[in-house]
């Protein structure tokens, strides 16, 4: 199996149909396929072991993804927002790679690694001018994505061609989109949702309108100018779009028929507001992970409207659910010993199915029966609706970006006046979750000001780690085993 099949089928069915609109240029499936075939030749000739993208979204992402598949080389898009030190580490791990995008940064950070680098324009131009490969490559791994590295070095999650083909063929009907449909994609190319978007739209033959990066005004303008009919958003993006509309932004959104969202917790107020604001739009909440080839559960449009209208608290509560498993996926909630739990009881979410890889370069996380422990905490109600309740390991998920409390706490503890510290997730309307920190001050010291604490984090870590709230406590709550009771710390922020 090979994911390049999707582009080949779309081009076979209608080579002249427009599949991608990006930066003013319109790409037909035939043109995209020829460019991907040319890219495959370039990739194969480079002798590299990985294909990478270090760039914002563009046609180069589509061409590199399918080109890598045709060449039989794993595609490893990297997060261009990473700090130099972290990025250098990842570049070293994929060497020698065929890298498209920020050539200057690769040369500065990884000169010794033997990478082959191309700027975006250079790559796309060469791919279009190069003849295609005769022999399709044979390789199991289609895509490798580095996890956000919450406690240790980032893990290299791998998705095999068979995982992604199972996911797409099992959940998307080939060629089911009509020619007037257009899907606006604004998620980053290094995120599983960005990759799944390119695959599912190609297979459905649904035209993609690709934004280089998300901005609410650009998004609104693209909906109007391209007659966009559907979009995928992370909750933070939806919040920003609504904020612009509330501020009186000029918007023509009558073409919009559906919005899918996922990637992080959706605040209840926000989805209620969106359902009121767009009464004719179908909303779908999708839950999935990198290791599961994207979506494993969906809360569909009808379920959104039913919950939104209902006066029954049980039905209303479903707006906070991520829906029910796909027909091709099994989901179980298990306790700490791995025993299945009945409906209503909170435990860890386990997933099984052909699309679930659960595999890292270093090891597979699947159990003997093929179940993947997601590390997400949650429960299922009697009707089989899945509710998530944070990360099993207390990762903070801010606007779709996972961050480890540990890295924030380590920096806080470098402050001479801070004796103990805990970073926890605090609910946020804008971000889903944001950072709250509780600190304990050393005896005889003055507590640092909020500004001082924020500056300390800002100077040492990425700005997303800066706490929104700082609490000063006499002591942090620990259990008898000396384990920090994070839930109690989180409760302190609820007041």
């Amino acid at each position, binding site marked *: 199996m090979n994911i390049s099949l999707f582009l080949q089928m779309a081009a*076979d*069915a209608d080579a002249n149909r427009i599949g991608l609109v990006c930066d003013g240029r319109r790409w037909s499936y035939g043109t995209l396929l020829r460019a991907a075939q040319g890219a495959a030749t370039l990739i194969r000739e480079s002798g590299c072991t990985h294909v990478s993208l270090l760039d914002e979204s563009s046609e180069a992402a589509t061409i590199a993804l399918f080109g890598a598949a045709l060449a039989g080389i794993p595609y490893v898009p990297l997060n261009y927002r990473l700090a130099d030190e972290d990025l250098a580490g990842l570049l070293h791990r994929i060497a020698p790679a065929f890298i498209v995008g920020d050539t200057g940064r690769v040369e500065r950070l990884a000169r010794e690694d033997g990478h082959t680098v191309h700027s975006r324009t250079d790559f796309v131009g060469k791919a279009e001018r190069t003849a295609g490969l005769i022999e399709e490559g044979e390789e199991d791994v289609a895509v490798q994505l580095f996890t956000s590295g919450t406690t240790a070095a980032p893990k290299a999650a791998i998705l095999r061609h068979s995982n992604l083909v199972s996911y797409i063929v099992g959940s998307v009907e080939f060629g089911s989109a009509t020619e007037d449909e257009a899907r606006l994609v604004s998620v980053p190319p290094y995120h599983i949702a960005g990759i799944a978007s390119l695959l599912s739209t190609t297979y459905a033959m649904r035209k993609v309108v690709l934004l280089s990066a998300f901005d609410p005004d650009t998004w609104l303008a693209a909906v109007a100018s391209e007659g966009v009919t*559907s979009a995928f958003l992370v909750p933070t993006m939806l919040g920003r779009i609504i904020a612009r509309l509330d501020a009186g932004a000029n918007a023509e959104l009558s073409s919009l028929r559906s919005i*899918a969202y996922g990637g992080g917790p959706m605040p209840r107020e926000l989805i209620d507001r969106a359902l009121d604001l767009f009464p004719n739009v179908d909303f779908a909440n999708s839950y999935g992970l990198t290791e599961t080839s994207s979506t494993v559960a969906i809360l569909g449009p009808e379920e959104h409207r039913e919950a939104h209208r209902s006066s029954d608290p049980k039905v209303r509560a479903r707006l906070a659910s991520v829906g029910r498993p796909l*027909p091709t996926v099994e989901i179980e909630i298990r306790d700490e010993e791995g025993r299945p739990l009945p409906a209503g009881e909170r435990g860890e979410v386990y997933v099984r199915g052909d699309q679930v890889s659960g595999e890292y370069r270093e090891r597979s996380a699947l159990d003997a029966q093929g179940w993947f422990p997601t590390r997400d905490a949650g429960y299922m109600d009697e009707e089989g609706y899945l509710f998530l309740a944070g990360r099993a390991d207390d990762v903070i998920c801010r606007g779709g970006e996972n961050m480890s409390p540990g890295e924030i706490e380590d920096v806080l503890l470098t402050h001479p006046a801070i004796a103990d510290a805990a970073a926890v997730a605090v609910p946020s309307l804008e971000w889903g979750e944001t950072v709250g920190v509780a600190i304990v001050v050393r005896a005889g010291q003055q507590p640092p000001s909020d500004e001082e604490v924020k500056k300390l984090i800002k100077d040492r870590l990425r700005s997303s780690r800066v706490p929104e709230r700082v609490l000063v406590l006499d002591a942090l709550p620990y259990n008898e085993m000396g384990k920090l009771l994070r839930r109690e710390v989180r409760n302190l922020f609820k007041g």
Partner: protein
Amino acid sequence: MKPGTKLKSTVDDTEVMVIRGSDAVVECGGAPMAEEKPGQLGTLNPDFAGGTMMGKRYVDAAGTVELLCVKPGKGSLAINGTALQIKDAKPLPSSD
């Protein structure tokens, strides 16, 4: 037939990819399919000329075999002379 194997019709243009396989021999247009296209096409059996459709999945009654049509043709798919059926899948909302 291993998942991922591509089978080609020996009497028309049909090509399928095996999603789920067994040891059964798949026929198209009344003739066994093969991994390599023959130099010259055989004759289409009019009893198996219903046609295949691009992108549709075909299954046997027991659900042991599932094939994805990646190139359509004039023949229809069968195992031991029993026609395969198009897999009926409930459409899902597009989620990413």
